[in-house]
């Protein structure tokens, strides 16, 4: 847009160059555009228009991401606290039972509602609202109660009149156990933190207090720590390996370094599965590395080393896969450090080591921060490589989440584990943004 400025009192201005001071001054009121609007107002309007125009360009993509990415993840977060099984299957009973104080048995009216709701659920067989759904949900709370619900549901069809309490007790003696009713009351609530407790190796006891889970089921917290530990090891190894290479690339003449850069970028561009397959071929017991070690006599033929399908395999393969994410940011920072700084330090009497420690290393810190955080963030949520080469003990938290979503179908627990992982990653992402800035990300 073209702005033409018309001065009411041209005598006051000797030049057409305006600085900010002139505009913000009281004399700025004197500046009126050809259409009679003061310049200040016109400028504000134009700026606003430009801002909304820039914003408008991003709107399609933001909308797209909200629908395809933000809402799905939000829905998953919701699933981790949402507990619909009770109120879906037994709608009337779920409301009534909340009035029970947990002492003695629920009232006969509540028993009646329970029986009626169970019969209804069996009759309607709506997806997600069957007795089976409730049975599965109760089974998470009290293992072994699944069959109690399903068999009772079959037998209840004969029960047409009260007393319902006695009828239930006749069908199965287990209903006399008050623990079941207390847990049923909790399961009937719409929202619960039970899945977060499970994800943190805790549970509700029969009185509704929070206690540690049985030793046998305490697997999640230790797995979180294992994931953090392995990610830290992988990140450290990446840094150790990437540092000399990035330094070499940064001091070589551009043509040579471009050539060597291909050796870094080719793995980066090669399919993840290709690289994982290659590591299986190299590291397995009958693989290339073991064959070489046997042929030069370092290990005996029956003493072949198990290097894959365990943590070692996961670490080696993941270091290789994530290495470019460390080399690229380190390289781009090191390239900007003038070599004359080191020479200056040396000329002032610093030993090579001192010059490196006091001058060069501090200047590489932004690159180290960028690379370390990026690799750590990516490592902590890795799924494919551990699933293929991790064996039993190389599995990370992502694999447990996938197991609950795909195999055990305890979606709420999977969602709770996922939420904890997501929060961890987002915190790291926020730190990354503060320290490095996401707009500094680049590839080659």
């Amino acid at each position, binding site marked *: 847009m*073209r702005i033409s400025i018309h001065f009411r009192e041209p005598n006051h201005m000797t030049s057409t160059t305006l600085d900010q001071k002139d505009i913000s001054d009281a004399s700025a009121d004197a500046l009126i555009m050809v259409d009679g609007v003061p310049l200040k107002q016109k400028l504000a309007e134009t*700026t606003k228009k430009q*801002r909304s125009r*820039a914003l408008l*360009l*991003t709107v*399609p*993509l933001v909308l*797209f*991401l909200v629908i*395809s*990415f933000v809402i*799905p*993840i939000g*829905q*998953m977060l919701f*699933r981790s606290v949402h507990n619909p099984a009770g109120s879906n299957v037994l709608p009337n009973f779920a409301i009534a039972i909340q009035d029970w104080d947990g002492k003695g048995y629920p009232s006969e009216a509540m028993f009646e509602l329970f029986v009626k709701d169970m019969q209804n659920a069996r009759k309607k067989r709506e997806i997600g609202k069957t007795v089976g759904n409730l049975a599965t949900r109760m089974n998470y709370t009290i293992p072994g109660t699944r069959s109690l619900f399903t068999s009772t549901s079959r037998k209840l069809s004969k029960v047409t009149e009260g007393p319902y309490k006695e009828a239930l007790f006749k069908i199965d003696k287990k209903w006399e156990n008050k623990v079941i009713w207390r847990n049923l009351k909790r399961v009937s609530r719409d929202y619960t933190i039970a899945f977060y407790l499970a994800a943190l190796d805790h549970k509700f006891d029969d009185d509704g207090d929070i206690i540690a889970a049985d030793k046998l089921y305490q697997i999640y917290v230790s797995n979180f720590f294992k994931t953090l530990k392995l990610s830290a090891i992988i990140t450290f190894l990446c840094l150790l390996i990437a540092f*000399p*290479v990035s330094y*070499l690339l940064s001091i070589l003449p*551009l043509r040579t370094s*471009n050539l*060597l850069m291909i050796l870094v970028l*080719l*793995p980066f*561009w*090669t*399919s*993840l*599965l*290709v690289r994982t*397959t*290659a590591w*299986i071929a190299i590291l397995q017991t*009958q*693989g*290339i590395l073991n*064959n070489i070690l046997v042929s030069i006599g370092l290990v005996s033929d029956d003493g072949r080393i198990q290097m894959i399908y365990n943590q070692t395999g996961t670490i080696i393969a993941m270091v*290789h896969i994530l290495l470019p994410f460390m080399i690229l940011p380190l390289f781009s920072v090191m390239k900007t450090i003038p070599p004359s700084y080191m020479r200056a330090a040396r000329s002032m009497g610093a030993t*090579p080591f001192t010059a490196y420690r006091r001058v060069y290393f501090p200047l590489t810190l932004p690159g180290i921060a960028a690379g370390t955080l990026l690799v750590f963030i990516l490592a*902590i*949520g890795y*799924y*494919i490589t551990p699933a*293929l080469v991790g064996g039993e003990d190389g599995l990370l938290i*992502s694999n447990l*989440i*996938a197991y609950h*979503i*795909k195999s055990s179908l305890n979606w709420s627990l*999977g969602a709770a584990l*996922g939420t904890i*992982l*997501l929060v961890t*990653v987002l915190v790291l*992402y926020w730190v990354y943004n503060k320290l490095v800035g*996401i707009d500094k990300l*680049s*590839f*080659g």
Partner: protein
Amino acid sequence: MNLKKHHIAFIIACALVLLITGRISVLIGFFALFGTPLFFMKELPPFASTLDRIWQYTFLTICTFIFVFLITPILIIIPLSFNVEPYFTFTEGMMSFDPAAYSLRWYQDIFHNGMTNPDAEGSAWYSDMWNNAQWVRAMRNSFFIAFFATILATSLGTLAALGLSRPEMPYRGLITGLLISPMIVPLVITATGMFFFYSDIGLAKTFPGVILAHTTLGIPFVIITVTATLSGFDQSLIRASQGMGANGWTTFRKVIMPLILPGMISGALFAFITSMDEVVAVIFLADVDQRTIPRQMFSGIREQISPTILAVATILVAISIVLLSVLEILRRRSERMRGLAPS
């Protein structure tokens, strides 16, 4: 003179290795590993001490080992894919370069696996291969999904990047953070969320569902590459163009577009390769009908590991080499256009 001394020492070392092991292949390996650093060694100033020289050689040797670590896994699968035996390792015959130990049977298997009648002739064979061969089907799916995901991600991403790189863009940090986040959020979480949501709206187990997922995952790469190109973009060119009477569309077509095209293409290539390589979302969202190459490889590695996977992997390596070359050419072109050509 000093370099000559190095060479003499190196030749002596090689002779020793040959004497001890008596194997040419070991010598070649030794020569490649410890000789490469000599190639990159710089002429040190005369006052450099022996310690400096040793340090430089050690440093370069370490770097050589790291480069070997980086590139070996990718190169090693190429010869392995020509193995005549169904093993994932080099056989005796392959080591002694016996032609009988090499074959193309695993490449043939790419086409034959899943065909109803691999011995048919002519057009019957082709239609059978095109419709029934598992790997061919996976490749068709992969390219189909990647093509549409790339187009969507590139067009939406470029538009947003244009907005983000304007100086007057409000909430820049927040929006950039949102647009980059699909790259940061663990894939399992993204895939899980999409699995639930897309199941509810009937997109799970369909091509559009997988395409949407891959578009989402490719967007950060487009944003990053295009904004990087635009960061060196001289905004006054837009005003100059407008000053000479061009309207918005003409300015975009004649001024902005040619300058950001290399960035757009490399962003598109990134989105393409991301989609071609993506497997987690496919595992969660796709049915047998939408199986892609990585999905097929994933189950191949888990269930029945056969060198056909290596043959497919070799083809994928070839594809990535082609894409990387295109990218490198584009980068050079872009540098030339912006006057940053290598000296």
